[in-house]
């Protein structure tokens, strides 16, 4: 894959893996409204993934579509950031991940609306409207849990503390980003960081929480170095196509 196809692949993988993770909550969330919310966010992410991965397959030009990329790649070929593959943990940990990711995604998609790749621009313009709902949902819950009981606060703090180490990777740039930026297709992710921090700090202040202590950043997802968790996620998500290759219904 060339840099532009890889750029689309990374966008798609982030959405796909987060969508799959969130769908694990379906039927298990603490309340019906939460169950509906998380399932809806999952659905939006999977929808974005379909568009981005179809595009990556087209740009690659080897006859692979979004389904082939989702279901017939091995773990080391996935390019999602480590944040989205983190286990759901308890509800607070899930919400912590959503807070960090959705605000990033909303800023990213807003910037990508100006992409010279018309398909990426169109997907971003459409998806950003959904992503703003996700960011609001996560922010509301961080405030509710953080400024809630001793128990909910302790869990919110622990959830943020776990997820925080994966935030740096969202803004890391490499030669794929450089090539995409040069072509006018990609955006400077590092430049989104200040706005992201402002948003996160505002939510944390509302939630009476402090920023988690800085940690050494954990990165590597973009080049296929994943945590053990992703393999388990894929074994579930890809089961049917692995057991019955090419199955359709």
């Amino acid at each position: 894959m060339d840099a532009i196809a890889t750029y689309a692949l990374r966008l798609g993988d982030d959405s796909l893996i987060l969508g799959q993770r969130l769908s694990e909550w379906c039927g298990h969330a603490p309340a019906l409204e939460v169950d509906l919310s998380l399932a809806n966010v999952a659905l939006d992410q999977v929808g974005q993934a379909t568009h981005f991965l179809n595009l990556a397959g087209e740009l690659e030009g080897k006859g692979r579509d979004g389904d082939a990329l989702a279901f017939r790649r091995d773990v080391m070929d996935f390019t999602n950031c480590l944040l989205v593959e983190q286990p759901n943990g308890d509800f607070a940990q899930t919400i912590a991940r959503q807070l960090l990711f959705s605000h990033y995604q909303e800023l990213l998609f807003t910037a990508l609306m100006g992409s010279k790749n018309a398909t990426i621009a169109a997907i971003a313009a459409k998806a950003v409207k959904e992503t703003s709902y996700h960011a609001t949902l996560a922010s509301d819950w961080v405030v509710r849990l953080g400024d809630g009981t001793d128990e909910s606060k302790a869990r919110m703090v622990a959830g943020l503390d776990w997820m925080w180490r994966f935030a740096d990777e969202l803004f890391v740039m490499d030669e794929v980003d450089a090539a995409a930026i040069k072509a006018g297709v990609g955006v400077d992710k590092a430049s989104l960081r200040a706005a992201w921090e402002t948003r996160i700090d505002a939510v944390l202040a509302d939630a009476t929480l402090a920023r988690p202590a800085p940690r050494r950043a954990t990165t590597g997802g973009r080049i296929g170095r994943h945590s053990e968790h992703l393999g388990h996620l894929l074994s579930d998500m890809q089961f049917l196509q692995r057991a019955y290759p090419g199955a359709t219904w």
Partner: protein
Amino acid sequence: MSAVSAISDTDRIRAILARVPDPEIPAVSVVDLGIVREIAAGTVTITPTYTGCPATIAIEQSIREALDANGFANVAIETTLSPPWSTDWISDKGREDLRAYGIAPPPKGAATASLKNQTAAECPQCGSSNTEELSRFGSTPCKALWRCKACAEPFDRFKCH
């Protein structure tokens, strides 16, 4: 084909599609929901409401079946993402159909972020504006769950988008 018959075909296709219901909200047609963007001589262009809306595939199938059944098997269906669908494209008739079906329609101009979710929904049962949001995410991607404090009925509200 003469220009005259091409125009009448377009009108006929529009009339056919105006009878194709949305699979999730059968009270409203795909035309009134703003899903059908353009009807040209050989092509119908549609746009999905939400990126991940599972009804997107069913909608395309329903449109295909309606076209095939009415002698337009040669008319292609194209999907476009841009410009992104907005609730402002729901027609006045679509809004009334939604209300009659028990779903509070989105206010016009609601697609702009500043208006999002800030106005109280009008209860489709009793018309009261004394309502509250229970959950911003509802039974489908396009709906939020609300409750009327006047008549105590819960109801769906079409999300501003």
